[in-house]
């Protein structure tokens, strides 16, 4: 083929090759994973000028995730939380957690005994590691001159702020989880809007320690309730906070129990037979419930008991 002919022939071949490639791509696009629809909604919300998620908070969270890759045991993990409480005010809390304490919290969780023993172990262990965070809450309360009720709401709303995340262990892996609508969670272990994320293989009892929650923000009912309870206990504001466990229509459930005078509702409360105190249930998995102490979201409320954490 002479040089003159070559040019047209090659161009023609290239043209049809590109057309065929486009057709093939449109057929096998799903298999190649060219389009990544994951997290698109989050990106949209970040880009939206009407911004429903504080952009700064999201960027800080992304930076914090990058920081987590730093495995130096002497390093510290920095976090900034920003949330809206029941009083309509937005609170910001910046805190640090040492990587050593974080790794130690993980180890404590892995060695924990079942159920309440597990919560007690983690509660006791995380005191030192959470010191900076607890001090941060205390500063907010002092600076803003919050009364005990508003302070309590401020702490619980911070735990509610992150989207629900399924926490599972080996007995019930993420791939088997379905919610009431039959929706499967995404297996990325990050708090995100519906469909929620899921953390797989959180041994041994599918619950994160308060310190781990402070770092990751991923949690379900017992993780979030345990975190809120731990902070409230360490703030020592003059009222009791405990873990509640029982059955609701969705199955076995954990909630935060608060022992305060004049609660806004009386139907969801559990009496501790040992102390005689009544603890009012506060749902921690839903953000900003209409009621101060959490709306009574459950119709069924059976076999509830107070789990004292000391």
């Amino acid at each position, binding site marked *: 083929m002479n040089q*003159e*002919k070559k*040019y*047209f022939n090659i*161009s*023609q071949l*290239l*043209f049809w090759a*590109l*057309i065929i*490639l*486009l057709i093939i*791509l*449109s057929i096998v*696009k*799903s298999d190649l994973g*060219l*389009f*990544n*629809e994951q997290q*698109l*909604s989050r*990106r*949209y*919300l970040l*880009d*939206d000028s*009407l911004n*429903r998620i504080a952009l700064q908070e999201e960027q800080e969270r992304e930076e914090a995730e990058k920081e987590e890759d730093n495995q130096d045991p002497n390093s510290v993990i920095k976090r900034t939380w920003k949330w809206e409480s029941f009083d309509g005010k937005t609170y910001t809390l910046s805190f640090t957690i040492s990587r050593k304490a974080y790794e130690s919290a993980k180890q404590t969780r892995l060695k924990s005994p079942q159920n309440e023993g597990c919560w007690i172990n983690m509660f006791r262990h995380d005191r030192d590691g959470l010191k900076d965070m607890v001090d941060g809450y205390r500063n907010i309360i002092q600076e803003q001159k919050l009364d005990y009720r508003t302070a309590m709401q401020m702490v619980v709303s911070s735990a509610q702020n992150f989207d629900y995340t399924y926490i599972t262990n080996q007995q019930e892996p993420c791939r088997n989880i379905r919610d009431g609508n039959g929706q499967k969670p995404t297996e990325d272990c990050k708090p995100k*809007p*519906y*469909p929620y994320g899921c953390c797989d293989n959180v041994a041994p009892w599918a619950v994160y320690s308060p310190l781990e929650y402070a770092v990751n923000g991923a949690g379900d009912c017992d993780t979030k309730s345990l975190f809120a309870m731990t902070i409230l206990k360490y703030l020592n504001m003059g009222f009791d906070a405990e873990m509640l466990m029982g059955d609701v229509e969705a199955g076995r459930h954990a909630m935060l129990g608060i022992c305060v005078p004049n609660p806004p509702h009386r139907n969801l409360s559990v009496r501790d037979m040992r102390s005689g105190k009544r603890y009012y249930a506060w749902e921690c998995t839903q953000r900003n419930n209409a009621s101060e102490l959490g709306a009574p979201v459950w119709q069924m409320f059976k076999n509830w008991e107070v789990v004292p954490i000391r």
Partner: protein
Amino acid sequence: MPLSQQIGIDKDIMQKLPAEVVQRQLFIFNGISLMLLVIGLISAVSATVYSLILFHQWFIAIGVGIFIGMVVFNLYRLFLMTGLDLKGSTLAHYHIKHENLYKEHNLHQLEGTAYQHPDEILKGWAQAAKDKLRDKISINPAAPRNAFTIAVRVFVMALLAVIFANGLEILMFSQQINLALAELKPILQQQPNDWTYTHILTPTANEPFILINANSLLLTFDTLAAGLGKWKLLLDVMVLAIYMIPLLVIYRSTEIRHGAYVQELALHEISKTTYHYLITQKYCHIFQEQIKGLKLEFRKYDHRTNKGAAAE
């Protein structure tokens, strides 16, 4: 009808060329015609996709698609055919100024005597001049071209390519875009009277969504760009290359630029003009003689007389 005729190629012009040359030229122009048809089709499909998002009606969308497809096809055809010039060919000297040919073949001398010959003879002279000219053709492949007109054509076609690439990608990834939008919907729904949810992601009662479950081209573009990431650039470049290849072939392939068809077309035009020049000479003389034979008397009246006559 051969494909090459779709872009305006007349194979009868190449009658005097060897069969294998004609065959090769027809193969090339058939190939280019097919490319242009495919580009027109891509543009039509892409315009249909855009119209579906804007109007939510198949009838209107297909109508718009066909119209846009035909516009692009004809625009491209125009770009290609007007790009076939004689830069670098000796024929340009005669094609731009036909008097050069008349002078060279002493056709000016026939001005007084052309009427004496029948039309066929005149046609033969024009044909003979054309054949002599064909023997003199020489090509300078390094002859410069008008960069501005090339740049304008490339820019216009590149712009169209990028626009229609988006439509094509929306069609390719419509399912994935809809999944992403479905993920966004429940989040926006949580806000009371959310504008995007109400106006962009909710269809009106009589116009259900078709293809993309959104009213907004911009939101669709954003979703497409965010979902594809770097792959979008690759797909855009692929479509851009598809749109550019015929233009590139016309300007770069010597088989086309200085090919037999272009030379024959120029010769055909020169010979037609030469024949009409001779015919004009002939009939000009004949009509002049006829007018003289009528013995018409042209008088010049002064201005006043004409006025007076009109008044009477």
